[in-house]
């Protein structure tokens, strides 16, 4: 499956609300594969949501394997139509995003999350995540509602320049 172009601001598609995936069929699985391949193409990237590759469907991939801030780690997680069941104990940490090059920002996110969604096989999956994996899941879920970290920064002085990650 091809590595897709990651959309960045000011492309309006990263600010759109995505719609649920009706059926987990071959095109949905192809989308999942594209998300995984595109994420893998950027070594620093630990997650990617469908709207970031221009597909306004509720799907994302997260993989925090090997990340030093990860505690829980479910490996490669692809979820369709994800929803948060529980989220608590927020902490502030600095995030960057492929769709917001050149900036980073301090964002408060829950450190304990229970999230439910459908796998590429069409079965329901419930994930109990903490620490960095919880942050990654919530960051990607935000993309499905058109929210970027810039919408969540804790204050005006919590936005910073950064090198462009490739």
């Amino acid at each position, binding site marked *: 499956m091809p590595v897709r172009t990651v959309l960045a601001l000011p492309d309006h598609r990263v600010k759109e609300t995505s719609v649920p995936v009706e059926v987990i069929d071959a095109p949905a699985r192809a989308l999942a594969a594209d998300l995984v391949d595109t994420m893998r193409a950027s070594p620093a990237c630990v997650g990617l949501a469908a709207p970031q590759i221009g597909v306004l469907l509720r799907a994302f991939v997260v993989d925090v394997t090997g990340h030093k*801030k990860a505690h829980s780690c479910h490996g490669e997680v692809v979820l369709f139509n994800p929803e948060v069941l529980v989220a608590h104990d927020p902490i502030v*940490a600095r*995030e960057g995003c492929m769709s917001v090059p050149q900036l980073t920002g301090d964002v408060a996110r829950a450190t304990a999350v229970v999230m439910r969604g459908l796998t590429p096989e069409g079965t329901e999956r419930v994930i109990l995540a903490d620490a960095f994996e919880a*942050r990654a899941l919530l960051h990607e879920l935000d993309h499905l509602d058109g929210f970027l970290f810039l919408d969540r920064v804790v204050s005006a*002085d919590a936005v910073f320049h950064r090198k462009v990650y490739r």
Partner: protein
Amino acid sequence: MPHFAICAVGADRPGIVAAVTGALLDAGGNLEDTSMTILGGHFAMMLVIAADAGAEELEAALSAPASAFDLTVIVRTIEEGVHESPEGEPWTASIYGADRPGIVHRFATALAGHDVNIVDLTTRVIGEPDRPVYAMVLDLSVPKGTDAGALQADLADLAGDLGVECTLHPVEVDIL
């Protein structure tokens, strides 16, 4: 299009940003990078703008908000719109302790000695008037290959000399 650096400072009250940016808009200016904050009760604006105008025209345009809000305004032409700072890794330093003259200068000098670039610096005087505490937070760009141990040691020595606390750590940015 020519670029300009503009500073405006005055006693804080609502409407300063609206008045200054309105005057610049009317003069054909477009705001680029800016930083605006309250310093000691004064609202301080630092702006880099692009404008198809001259510095004198912009100063004239700003005279109305300057007099309405009693602002000190400076406009200077700058050579480049976007100037690239030296590359480096992001670090943050926090320094605080009993207020005394020279804290910023001494630390800035020590950092410059390691070719560390200060990219953001905020200082605040806090605590009781008879026991002021000086708090400073710096965002730094540390060149690759810097001896982090030596840098930490130099800053720790300086903190000891000045009787202040200093912590220095790399900023971990997670790309999601």
